[in-house]
């Protein structure tokens, strides 16, 4: 009886409050919502841009509901990621043909409600994210043990992809914070899955520092709301353009701090090499590919697009920090014997070039950054997948363990060469084009800082080539050392891993041979960032 009473009590209280209130509301008659809410239902085609994150969310819920059925989990993920990728391709095509697409959630018109707004930049990033998420499933299926699946590996996997896609799609700055938390929480789940000592250690540092970065972002959002009175990004852009600077510089600095920490820019990058080598390989691969790029994307979307005038104050700082990040990251990689840690430092070094491009603040520079980010999402995922495949095939974890991949798995070795050429930025793989675009952008700018940035990008590429060339010679070409390979990997497992690796290398090669698949879209995205007239107009004319 007591339990019944304790259950019925809150219900009674709620009913006591809500029923009179709703009765009052009903007595008032229909409220006039013209100009505040959409008067008709949202068109079915408007939903397209939400599908890349709605489908993985549904997939994650389904995977959680079916958590007892281990065999189903990866299939649920495969279907949901496949559908999300198809939706992302369709959304990308629509945005390219038609300009920015907008969807008013809950029928609330901008600037009142949360808005999903996807322009060329967002659509491109969403497409690459779903593609990498889909391809990564091959490795995840082969490498994830039953225990992890039971603890919801594929739920977290899909939630993280949904969170990243959501962050790339939203047009509301507080909603951006919420998507940050969605993928942050799922990444917490992924990084400690397995609960070994090394993962707990890495998880503590990853968790705390990312939480602080996200909270700093929230502070900036709160202060920006206090100054502008709106959370809709297009609306904020308009209000800021009509307002004298003043405290905005402080808010802008907070945004730069938060996103630079997320993107692992020197000197805020220390959490990344401390944690990225600890989780399962495919988790590291997705973190390396996707999570830092969300920081880069937000830096472009919020700081470049919204704070035009204030951003100029940070231009020089970003070029210098980007150069430092690139060179120091590459030098850090040179000092590592552990292959996963080496790969983590290379993630940091790649961020440097993207930050330099943002620092240039021109269409050419931002185009370079966007193309670099697209390349980097695929290449960094591929690099971790390569390290993991090698570990599974030959047992080699560090440069001191001997080699033997070439003798044991010549095909994997060939794929590895592709990844290495792509990460080092050598043609015919995709790493070459963004570096070319960035150096070209530096020539167009032509001042001393631009020269510094271009020199940083090129020096980073040279050191990266040395790092990876050495790793190639020591772990692939060198005959096997005295490390015993792990208990005979089954054919299925190896083919799953190599399948993911092969698809990623094909993507890298495809983008290297046909850069026109990405560069025009990136250019449209960059122009939209510096002059968001069309975006603003599309957002504010929803009705």
């Amino acid at each position, binding site marked *: 009886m007591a339990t019944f009473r304790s259950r019925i009590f809150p219900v009674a209280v709620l009913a006591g409050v809500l029923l009179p209130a709703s009765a009052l509301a009903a007595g008032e008659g229909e409220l006039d919502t013209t100009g505040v809410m959409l008067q008709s239902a949202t068109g079915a085609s408007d939903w397209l841009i939400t599908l890349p994150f709605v489908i993985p969310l549904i997939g994650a819920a389904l995977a959680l509901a079916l958590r007892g059925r281990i065999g189903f989990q990866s299939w649920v993920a495969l279907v949901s990621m496949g559908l999300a990728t198809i939706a992302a391709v369709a959304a990308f095509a629509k945005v390219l043909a038609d300009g920015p697409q907008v969807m008013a959630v809950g029928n609330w018109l901008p600037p009142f409600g949360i808005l999903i707004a996807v322009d060329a930049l967002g659509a491109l990033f969403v497409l690459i994210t779903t593609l990498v998420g889909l391809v990564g499933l091959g490795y995840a299926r082969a490498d994830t043990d039953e225990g992890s699946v039971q603890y919801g590996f594929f739920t977290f996997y899909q939630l993280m992809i949904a969170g990243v896609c959501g962050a790339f799609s939203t047009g509301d700055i*507080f909603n951006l914070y919420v998507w940050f938390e969605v993928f942050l929480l799922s990444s917490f789940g992924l990084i400690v899955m397995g609960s070994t*000592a090394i993962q707990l250690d890495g998880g503590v540092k990853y968790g705390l520092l990312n939480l602080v970065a996200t909270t700093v972002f929230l502070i900036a959002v709160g202060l920006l*709301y206090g100054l502008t009175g709106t959370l809709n990004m297009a609306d904020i852009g308009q209000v800021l353009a009509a307002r004298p600077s003043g405290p905005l510089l402080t808010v802008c600095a907070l945004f730069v701090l938060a996103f630079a920490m997320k993107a692992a820019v020197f000197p805020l990058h220390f959490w990344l090499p401390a944690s990225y080598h600890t989780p399962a390989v495919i988790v590291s691969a997705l973190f390396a590919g996707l999570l830092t790029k969300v920081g880069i994307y937000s830096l472009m979307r919020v700081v470049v697009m919204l704070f035009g005038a204030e951003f100029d104050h940070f231009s020089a700082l970003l070029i210098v920090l980007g150069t430092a990040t690139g060179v120091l990251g590459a030098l850090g990689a040179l000092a590592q014997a552990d292959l996963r840690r080496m790969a983590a430092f290379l993630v940091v070094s790649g961020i440097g070039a993207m930050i330099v491009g943002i620092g240039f603040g021109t269409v050419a520079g931002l185009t370079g950054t966007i193309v670099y980010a697209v390349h980097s999402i695929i290449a960094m995922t591929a690099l971790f997948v390569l390290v993991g495949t090698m570990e599974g095939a030959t047992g080699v974890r560090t440069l001191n363990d001997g080699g033997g991949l070439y003798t044991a798995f010549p095909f994997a070795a060939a794929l590895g060469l592709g990844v290495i050429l792509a990460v080092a930025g050598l043609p015919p793989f995709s790493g070459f084009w963004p570096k070319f675009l960035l150096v070209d952008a530096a020539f167009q700018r032509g001042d001393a800082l631009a020269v510094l940035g271009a020199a940083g990008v090129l020096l980073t590429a040279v050191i990266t080539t040395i790092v990876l060339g050495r790793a190639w010679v020591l772990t692939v070409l060198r005959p096997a050392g005295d490390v015993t390979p792990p208990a005979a990997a089954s054919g299925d497992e190896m083919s799953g891993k190599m399948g993911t690796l092969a698809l990623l290398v094909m993507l890298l090669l495809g983008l290297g041979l046909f850069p026109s698949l990405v560069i025009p879209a990136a250019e449209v995205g960059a122009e939209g960032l510096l002059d968001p007239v069309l975006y603003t107009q599309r957002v504010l004319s929803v009705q």
Partner: protein
Amino acid sequence: MEVVMCAVVALFYAASIYLMLSRHMIRILLGVSIFGNAVNLTIFTAGRLTEAAPPVLSALTGAEPANPLPQALILTAIVISFSIFAFLLVLGMRAYQTLGTDNVHRMRTAEANSPMPPPMGY
């Protein structure tokens, strides 16, 4: 009123940053918790402090309503920061049990103090 709130928020930030700079996990976590509350108060103050009727219900009585948006934002932020705090608390506990220390300077499993250098020759 805003001035008082600003002072309170500043105090919260100061205390939380002081605690987060500590090397002991539990103090860092307390700092994180206060940090989250400081942000909530920041948003609350940024939404302007007014003497007004509760939102939604005030539409029925005709009184000037308070700004409901900061309240909605804070509610979201509280839920998120609480769940993350709960996760980090458990993580800190497990890390303490497994690694045998709550001093983050002594947590050197993932990053050894003197790692093996890479080979110097072929």
